[in-house]
């Protein structure tokens, strides 16, 4: 038989298959979809106020020379409540924070702010998630670090933990 080696081909294919399996078992699939809209200017938008007494948010507000956070949140999002103290801490450290409320109603946002405090300078209401989609964000809460020119520098998915706060302050500081 000239082509005896071909009989080992199935074994080789199996080895490749098992290689892929092993890779995936050792590096589990992370299910977070990261935004690719990083190091790019904030998409253009002009969102109305999410609730009475807090200003709405438009993209031109974000290029005033001060690095800042844009927090994508919702009153119906339970983890967002857990994030409130960290946002307060950032606020207290002098970090400007703006909010985008996803699929929310004014009364609900007001109640959320009453219960959890209001670290936001402005909150835009994104009722059809269109700004969220334009940002490449896939859930709440998410936080974007924006430099003074209105360029998105980083995306944080999920709740900001207490340990993350000093790092965030330092990174925003570095953008100045």
């Amino acid at each position, binding site marked *: 038989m000239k*082509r005896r080696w*071909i009989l080992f081909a199935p074994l080789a294919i199996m080895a490749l298959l098992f290689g892929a399996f092993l890779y995936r078992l050792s590096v589990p699939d992370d*299910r977070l*979809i*990261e*935004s*690719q*809209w990083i190091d790019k200017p904030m998409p253009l938008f002009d969102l109305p106020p999410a609730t009475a007494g807090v200003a709405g948010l438009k993209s031109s507000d974000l290029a005033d020379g001060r690095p800042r956070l844009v927090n994508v949140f*919702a009153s*119906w*999002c339970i983890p967002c409540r857990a994030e409130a103290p960290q946002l307060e801490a950032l606020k207290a450290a002098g970090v400007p924070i703006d909010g985008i409320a*996803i*699929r*929310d*109603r004014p009364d*609900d946002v007001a109640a959320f702010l009453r219960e959890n405090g209001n670290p936001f300078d402005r909150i835009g209401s994104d*009722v*059809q*998630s*269109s700004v*969220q*989609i*334009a*940002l*490449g964000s*896939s*859930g*709440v809460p998410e936080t974007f670090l924006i430099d003074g020119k209105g360029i998105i520098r980083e995306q944080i998915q999920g709740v900001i933990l207490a340990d993350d706060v000093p790092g965030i302050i330092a990174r925003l500081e570095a953008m100045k």
Partner: protein
Amino acid sequence: MSARLLVAAMLTLFMAPVAAQDRLPPAPYAYQQLADPAKEAKAKALMETLRCLVCQGQSIADSDAPLAGDMRHEVRSKVAAGESPDAIRKWLVARYGNWVSYDPPFDRATALLWLAPLLFLAIGLWLAFGRLRGANREEEP
């Protein structure tokens, strides 16, 4: 096996809106077709190839998740405004990466995927004709 997975798919499908219980009505174009049938057909075909971000393994055309509804609204609005499906896909890929499209592009990482049909057929034909060639040379008893 597949049944169970489908159950899972269904669970996520139905759980998604529950997990994120907002109280807003769906966006206008989430459950409403475009008036122009040609544009609606384009939008529909595109939506079937875009992956729902929160339900894993479902296109935005087959999901009740609110974000899928908002993405349908986004797609239909853009199609209504005259954007081409290709441009809309590119717009979304620029934000979410190729993950969001069920139609992978041809690039360095997917070359093997797209060339596989030809490669497999070529190998198969080579093996099969190795079998057949002999028949012409020697007659069977």
